C-alpha cells in the first residue's frame, strides 16, 4: 500500500518535505538542508522506497520536536530512478543550486560511484549507503562517511558461518556477471583463500540465466558441501534454489541477503526449497533466542507501524531503520559541531564513537570512514521473515 503511494510520489521529479510545526526559534534560524538521493522508481527501487519511509519519518519526528538546536530540517528528495547519469545531475543540483548541508545517498553503489566525487568536490558531508569498498576514502573523499555495512563485512560473515558454524570447507561460489556480483565473488574467494580454503568451484553466470542446474551439477561433481551465491538478483537466486530443490540435493546455501527477499518464495517451485538457505543480515533486525527484538528496533517498529499500514511488516525492516538512522546521524553531527560548517561536521564524524542507532551503533575515525561495526552483521535463516525481521541461522 505504502509502496503505491510512494511510487506516485516518486513520479514527481522533485519532492520537497518542509517542516510541519513551527517553533519560535526556527523562524530566526536557517533550516538544515538535507539532500536525499533515492531511486524511488526504476530498478532496485524496493530498498529505496523502504529507506525513504525511515528518512521521512525521522525528519518529521525531529521537526515535530523543534528541529535540531532550533533549526528545522528541510529535506530535498530527488528520484534518481537508479540511473547514475540522473544521480550525477541531481548531486550537482543539490550541491550548487539547492546548497544543501548534507547529502544522503544515493541508494545504489553504481550511482554512488558517480556522485561521491561531486559531493567531495563541493566539500559536502555525504552519508554513503552503498556497500562497495571504493565509495569511502579519507584522502579522496574526506567528508564521505558510510552508514551501511561494507560488502566485505557481509562476505566475512557468510564465510565465517560456513567455516566455523557449519564446519564446511568445500565451497562453491556462484556470482553473477554484474559489477557487483563479479567483485563480490572475487572477494569471497580471496577471503576464503586467506583463511586457507580454496573454493572447489567458482563460476560467474548471467543474472538472467534461466537455469542453474548445470552449475549445481558441476559444483556437486567438484565435491561442494556449501553453495555460496553472490548476487542481488532475486530471479537468479530463486532459480538457484529451484535447481537445488529439483535436483533433490541437500546442500546448504549461504550468501547474499537478497535470498531473504519477500519476492523469493513467490518464485519457488515449492515452498520447502527455501529451507536450509542462510543469508547475511543484521543483529538489529534479528530475533533473540527468546523471540525478542533489540529494544531500539522494537520501538521504531511500533512507532512506524501505523505509517506502514498498521499490520505485520512484509518487507525487510532494516532498510527503514537505515533510512531513519541517516537523518539521526545528521542530527547528532549538527548538535556535536554546533552548526552545519562542513569542516566542523567532518571533525564531529571522526570523533564519533559508538553512536547508538536503530540499524547499528556507529563509529568513525580519521582513518576509517566505515561506521558500521563488524559485530552488527549476522547470518539469518533466509525463510524466516516475520514482521520485517528474521531468525538467526542455527548455530
Amino acid at each position, binding site marked *: 500500500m505504502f509502496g503505491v503511494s510512494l*511510487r506516485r510520489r516518486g*513520479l514527481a521529479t522533485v519532492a520537497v518535505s518542509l517542516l510541519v510545526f513551527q517553533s519560535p526559534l526556527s523562524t530566526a534560524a536557517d533550516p538544515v538542508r538535507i539532500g536525499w538521493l533515492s531511486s524511488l*522508481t*526504476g*530498478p*532496485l*527501487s*524496493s530498498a529505496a522506497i523502504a529507506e525513504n519511509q525511515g528518512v521521512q519519518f525521522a525528519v518529521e519526528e525531529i521537526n515535530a520536536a523543534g528541529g535540531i538546536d532550533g533549526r528545522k530540517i528541510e529535506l530535498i528528495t530527488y528520484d534518481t530512478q537508479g540511473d547514475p547519469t540522473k544521480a550525477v545531475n541531481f548531486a550537482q543540483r543539490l550541491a550548487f543550486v539547492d546548497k544543501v548541508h548534507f547529502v544522503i545517498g544515493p541508494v545504489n553503489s553504481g550511482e554512488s560511484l558517480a556522485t561521491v566525487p561531486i559531493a567531495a568536490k563541493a566539500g559536502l558531508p555525504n552519508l554513503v549507503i552503498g556497500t562497495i569498498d571504493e565509495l569511502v576514502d579519507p584522502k579522496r573523499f574526506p567528508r564521505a562517511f558510510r552508514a551501511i555495512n561494507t560488502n566485505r563485512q557481509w562476505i566475512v560473515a557468510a564465510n565465517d558461518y560456513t567455516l566455523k558454524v557449519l564446519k564446511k570447507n568445500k565451497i562453491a561460489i556462484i556470482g*553473477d*556477471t554484474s559489477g557487483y556480483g*563479479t567483485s563480490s565473488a572475487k572477494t569471497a574467494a580471496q577471503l576464503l583463500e586467506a583463511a586457507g580454503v580454496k573454493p572447489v568451484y567458482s*563460476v*560467474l*553466470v*548471467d543474472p*538472467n*540465466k*534461466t*537455469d542453474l*542446474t*548445470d552449475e549445481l*551439477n558441476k559444483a556437486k561433481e567438484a565435491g561442494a558441501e556449501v553453495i555460496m551465491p553472490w548476487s542481488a538478483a*532475486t*530471479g537468479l537466486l*530463486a532459480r538457484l534454489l*529451484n535447481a537445488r*530443490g*529439483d535436483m*533433490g540435493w541437500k546442500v546448504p546455501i549461504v550468501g547474499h541477503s537478497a535470498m531473504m*527477499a519477500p*519476492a523469493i518464495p*513467490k*518464485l519457488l*517451485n*515449492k515452498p520447502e526449497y527455501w529451507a536450509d538457505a542462510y543469508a547475511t543480515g543484521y543483529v538489529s533486525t534479528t530475533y533473540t533466542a527468546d523471540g525478542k527484538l533489540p529494544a531500539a528496533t522494537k520501538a521504531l517498529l511500533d512507532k512506524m507501524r501505523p505509517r506502514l499500514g498498521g499490520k505485520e511488516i512484509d518487507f525487510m525492516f532494516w532498510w527503514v531503520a537505515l533510512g531513519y538512522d541517516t537523518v539521526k546521524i545528521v542530527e547528532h553531527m549538527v548538535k556535536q559541531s554546533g552548526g552545519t560548517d562542513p569542516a566542523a561536521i567532518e571533525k564531529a564524524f571522526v570523533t564519533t564513537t559508538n553512536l547508538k542507532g536503530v540499524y547499528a551503533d556507529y563509529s568513525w575515525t580519521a582513518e576509517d570512514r566505515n561506521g558500521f561495526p563488524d559485530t552488527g552483521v549476522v547470518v539469518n535463516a533466509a525463510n524466516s521473515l516475520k514482521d520485517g525481521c528474521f531468525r538467526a541461522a542455527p548455530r
Partner: protein
Amino acid sequence: MLTALVTGIAAGALYAAAALVYNVMFSTSKVLSVTTGHLAMLGGVFGAWLTAGLGWPLPVALLGAVAIGAAFGIATEWIAIRRVLSRSDEHLWLLSTLALATMLQQGVALWWGTEPKPFPRLIPQDFSAGLADQKYWLPVAIALLLALGLEVFYRRTLYGKLFVAMSEDAFAARARGIPTDLIRSLSFALAGAMGALAGFAAGQLTFAYFALGLTLTLNGFVALAVGGLGSNLGALVGGLLLGVIGAFATYYLGGEYQQTIAVGVLMLVLLLKPAGLFGSASIRPV
C-alpha cells in the same frame, strides 16, 4: 552438458521467436523495431497478471495476453512507424521505436514492479520432470508452431500473399491497389500477437519480468542477422544456434563470456556471409 544443450535450445527458441517477429514486421515496413522483445515481455507479464492477479482461466488469459500484444503491435505501427516512414527515408524509426520501447518498459516497471514475478504452471506436471519440464519445451514448440504457421500463412492465404507482395515491392503493391497502410498495421498486429504468445509460452523460463524486452530485442536481432533477414528458417536456425552457443560458452568458459561470444558469432557471420546463413543478397538494380 545435456542440461546446457536443453537450456540452450529453450533460450534459443525464444530468440528464434523474436527473430520471426522481426521478420513479420520487416516484411511490410522494412523496419527492425526495437519493441520486438518487449512484445514477449508483455506476453509474460500480462499472462501472469491475468492468471495469478485476476484469476482468469489459462486459455482466456492466453487470449487476453495475445490481444494485448496485438494491440501494442498496432500502437507501435501507428505511433512510431507510420508517421516516421511517411516523412523520411532515413532510419529514424530506430529512434522512434527505441523511445516507445523505453516508455513501455518504464511504464511496466512502475505498474508491475522491478522484481521478477512468478508465472503459473500451464500444464499439470511435477517439478521433478527434469529436462522434460514444460518450461524447456514449450518455447521450442511455440517457435516451431510460429514458423510453420507463418509459412502456411504466406503460401496459403490471401493476406499472406499481400504481405509477400509488400515485402518484395511496396510501391508496386500500392500501384496494384493493395492498401499498404492497412497491411502494414495488420503485420504489426500479427507480430504483436506472435511475440506475446512466445512470451506467454516462455513465462516459466523467464519469469514475468519487466526488463526481459531489451535482452530479447538484442538476441532476436543477432539470431535474425545470423539466420538471414527475411528467412523464417534462418530465424529458427539462428536463434537455436545463438542459444546453444551461449549455453555452451557459459558451461565451458563461464557467464562472463556469454555475450561476447554471442556478439562474436554475429560479427563472424556478417564477415563471412553478410546476408546471413539463409538470407539472399539483395540485388541492386542499376
